[in-house]
Structure formats: structure tokens, C-alpha cells
């Protein structure tokens, strides 16, 4: 053969998108090769994203709760904190999952190649491996190369400037940490470092943190974070960073005012850029836009029909569950199924404390798009379960079409919000209306009850407010 290796379907990138596509394709009878340059399968999400961040957030959460129950009769005092052990535990969680993936690949006879892949032509990848270059030919390819942290040009190369990957390495707990970017990743990692002992400042250009969510939904997080962080600077720009011996001197600009402040570390969390430009896509004729995104149709096909793309590299939202959903579609399309992306909504979650989750239409979007919605809010102050967890700072907001009463969206903030939002996602997909949700008996006392109760607020049948 002209190539060293061949498979029906070759997938490049073994993140949630890539491994899911490879496994689904194999389950549908294809021979599959999965190429990734990492040491382990799982991509960003498992190795340096979703999973390690959630493991650290879990530790932080337990520390918060231990502190809180100390006021309620179970006094823990200050724990002895061993950063090495925390890091090891985080690693063990990641390894268990990436090891699991390896087993799943083997079980499915998916061949994995460790190396960096670029197109060698419309039916070939060239993979740079430890043993040299290998060529891999295919009938169909799936590009799942994901994204990388955005770097800011005016920030110097300095070991004290880290991105999310660096932050998750937990090299040390800096005394003064500046988080550049108040999005999901910045807020999650900021809370971890604050809990582990850093004095955390967050700077965000937009007028609110986590700009995708509505302001009222963000408010409880903003309140809690503000009381624990040193400060949260909104509508503020970083215009310069100077690497001095005793700190990184940052210049902030808010309106006309500028200010300088020193930090021990800076975590840059201003977004992620797609990796589309790094795979010699032009060699295969695959179009990549100037930002590095690869455009696909609803079947996940690029402009070259036998080459598909999925996950972060095809566009926003850059979320693991979107990548997996697209992965299944791509594999099914290649297998000849008539699948297409048809999901009505993709939920978003910030795994902060409190958690913030939203799905479907937000109030901001409704306003922008001129869609008239009626909102119904259930404040968790009236939730027995939330109070029994020592917390009263959540809320469940549902947005309905005032005419059809159909559910259009939801924003939830509070403990387990990320779990609760799934019910609303299903409700939206099924076209449920307020009464469908209100008349579904939710177990008491749970937090999920708040979804039913918010629907009762809409219906005017609520008796818990």
C-alpha cells in the first residue's frame, strides 16, 4: 500500500470528540485508527480540562463545607494541607479515566497512534511519532483536534504566567494570583486557588463575569466570589504586564483610569482558540477560517465530503458534551446513517460554588432577538433542601413563551445546578410547557423540586412562596 497504515475511518485528536467518534465508528463496523499527540487518550477534557478541574473543585467544596459545619457544631479547625497529595489524587482520578479509555479502545480494536498528525493529501495523514513519520490512509477522516488556550501578545513569556493547564499542575499556591478573564474556567480555577490559600483577583473586560449567563443568575456567584476574592474588576482591561523580580506588575485600565498592581502569578484564562490551522488542512483541500475554525454542515461534513470535523475545532460552544454529540453524528454519517445535528439546546455549566447552569434561551438573548418571554423565578431561600444544606443563595429561573406556555430556557444557580439543568434540557427537547413541568411530581425535599416550583410560579399555583 502507498501508506504505512490504513483504516476505513481515521480520527485525529482523541479528546471527547475524537475518542467518541472513533468508538462509535468501530461499533458501527468500521476499521478505525485514532491519532493523538498526547501521552494518554482523553484530550483536553480528561487530561487538562473538565476532569482535573472538577477534582480540585471537589476538594475546595469539601473545604468550604467543613468550614461551614464548624459553625454548626462540628469544628474542624484548619486542616493540614499537602499540595503534593492533592496533586497526586487529581492525577489518579485522571489516570483512572484515561486508562479506562485505553481499555475501551482495545476492546473495540481501535488502533491508536501517538503522534502529531497533518494531512498528507485528501486521503492521507502524516503522523510524526517517536519512531519517525508514519503515513495513514483513509476512506473517511474525522478532524477532532480541539482547541488551545489563547495567549495575549502583550504578556511576557515568564514561568509566573500560566494558562489553565499550568494552573491545574498546581506547582505552588501563589500568594497573590491574578486571574485574567472571568469566564467559566477563570472563575472555577480562581475559586480553587482561593480555597487553597491564594489571594485571588479577577479582571474581566465585560460588565459581568461569565457573560453567557444572565446577570440575576450570576448574582449569587458574584456575591460569594466577591466576599472571598481580593477583588473582581469588571469592565477593566489589562494593558501591560511587566515581569519584575519581585512580581508581575500589571497595568489595568478602567474607563479613563489606570492603575498598577503586583502579583506573584497570572492565570490567563481569556478563551480558547481552535487548532484548525495546525493540521495542513489545505493539503486535503479542507477550508479553515482565519481564526482556525473548520466549518461543517449539519452532518458534520467539511467542504470535502469524506472529511468531517467535530468538537471545539468546529465552533462554539466549546464544550465536551457538544463534541461527543457531534462525534456520534459524524461516525453515523460515515456509516451511512441519515444522522444530522438536530439538538435544540446545549446546556452550559460553571462548576463554581454556587454552580451556575443555563440552557436554551437566556433573558439577554431574548432581549437581543426581540423574543417576548415570561420568566418565573423560584428563590432557593424557600427551598427546604437548600437550607438543610446550610445555603440559601440559589435560584431557579425558567423562561416561557407567554402564548404557548412552552419552556424556552432556564438559568439555575446553586448547589448541583449542573445536574438540575438536564431536566430542563429534556423538557425543551420534548416541547414541554409550564404545566407539564408543574404537574410532574418532583421529590421533596430536593433541589430539583425548584424546577417544578418555578413552573408553578409561572402557572400561579405555587404554595411555597
Amino acid at each position: 500500500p502507498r501508506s504505512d497504515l490504513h483504516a476505513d475511518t481515521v480520527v485525529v485528536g482523541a479528546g471527547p470528540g475524537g475518542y467518541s467518534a472513533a468508538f462509535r465508528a468501530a461499533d458501527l463496523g468500521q476499521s478505525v485508527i485514532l491519532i493523538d499527540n498526547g501521552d494518554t487518550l482523553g484530550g483536553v477534557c480528561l487530561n487538562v480540562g473538565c476532569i482535573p478541574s472538577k477534582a480540585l473543585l471537589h476538594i475546595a467544596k469539601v473545604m468550604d463545607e467543613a468550614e461551614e459545619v464548624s459553625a454548626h457544631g462540628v469544628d474542624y479547625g484548619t486542616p493540614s494541607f499537602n499540595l503534593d497529595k492533592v496533586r497526586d489524587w487529581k492525577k489518579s482520578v485522571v489516570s483512572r479515566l484515561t486508562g479506562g479509555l485505553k481499555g475501551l479502545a482495545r476492546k473495540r480494536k481501535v488502533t491508536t497512534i501517538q503522534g502529531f498528525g497533518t494531512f498528507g493529501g485528501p486521503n492521507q495523514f502524516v503522523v510524526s511519532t517517536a519512531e519517525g513519520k508514519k503515513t495513514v490512509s483513509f476512506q473517511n477522516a474525522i478532524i477532532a483536534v480541539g482547541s488551545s488556550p489563547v495567549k495575549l501578545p502583550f504578556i511576557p513569556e515568564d514561568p509566573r504566567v500560566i494558562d489553565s493547564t499550568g494552573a491545574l499542575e498546581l506547582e505552588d499556591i501563589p500568594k497573590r494570583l491574578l486571574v485574567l478573564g472571568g469566564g467559566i474556567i477563570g472563575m472555577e480555577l480562581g475559586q480553587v486557588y482561593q480555597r487553597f490559600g491564594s489571594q485571588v483577583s479577577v479582571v474581566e473586560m465585560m460588565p459581568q463575569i461569565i457573560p453567557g449567563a444572565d446577570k440575576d443568575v450570576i448574582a449569587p456567584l458574584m456575591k460569594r466570589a466577591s466576599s472571598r476574592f481580593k477583588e473582581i474588576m469588571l469592565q477593566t482591561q489589562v494593558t501591560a504586564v511587566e515581569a519584575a523580580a519581585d512580581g508581575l506588575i500589571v497595568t489595568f485600565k478602567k474607563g479613563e483610569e489606570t492603575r498598577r498592581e503586583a502579583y506573584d502569578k497570572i492565570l490567563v484564562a481569556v478563551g480558547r482558540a481552535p487548532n484548525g490551522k495546525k493540521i495542513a488542512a489545505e493539503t486535503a483541500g479542507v477550508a479553515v477560517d482565519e481564526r482556525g475554525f473548520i466549518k461543517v454542515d449539519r452532518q458534520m461534513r467539511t467542504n470535502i465530503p469524506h472529511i468531517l470535523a467535530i468538537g471545539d475545532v468546529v465552533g462554539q460552544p466549546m464544550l465536551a458534551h457538544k463534541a461527543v454529540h457531534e462525534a456520534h453524528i459524524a461516525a453515523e454519517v460515515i456509516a451511512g446513517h441519515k444522522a444530522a445535528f438536530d439538538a435544540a439546546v446545549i446546556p452550559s455549566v460553571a462548576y463554581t460554588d454556587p454552580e451556575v447552569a443555563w440552557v436554551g434561551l437566556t433573558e439577554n438573548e431574548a432581549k437581543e432577538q426581540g423574543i417576548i418571554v415570561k420568566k418565573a423565578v423560584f428563590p432557593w431561600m424557600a427551598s427546604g433542601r437548600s437550607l438543610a444544606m446550610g445555603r440559601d443563595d440559589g435560584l431557579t429561573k425558567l423562561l416561557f413563551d407567554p402564548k404557548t406556555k412552552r419552556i424556552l430556557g432556564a438559568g439555575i444557580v446553586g448547589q448541583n445546578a449542573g445536574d438540575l439543568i438536564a431536566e430542563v434540557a429534556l423538557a425543551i427537547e420534548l416541547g414541554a410547557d409550564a404545566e407539564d413541568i408543574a404537574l410532574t411530581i418532583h421529590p421533596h425535599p430536593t433541589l430539583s423540586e425548584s424546577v417544578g416550583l418555578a413552573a408553578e410560579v409561572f402557572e400561579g399555583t405555587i404554595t411555597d412562596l
Partner: protein
Amino acid sequence: KPLASPSVRRRALEAGIRLAYIRGTGPAGRILHEDLDAYIVSSGQGAMVQP
């Protein structure tokens, strides 16, 4: 947009049927699997019905 659940939408896609042509008999006019079955039978596409 016609109101139908993900599985009805997927089946319609597989059968090459535009949901806009189908009248839903479910709550709030929701298009049900039964409506899709009836449409397929009435439009002579019976062979495409999957159990």
C-alpha cells in the same frame, strides 16, 4: 418549527420526511410516532416504516 421529540425528529430525518407536512395529534399539536406512522402509510411510504 413543528413540535416533535428528538426521536420523532430523528426518524423523520431517516425517512426523509419534512415534519412541517405532518399534523400532530399529541398535546399542543405535538407530532407523535403514531402521526409519523400514519403519514408514512398514507403517503405510500409504508416500506420505510421501521418498527
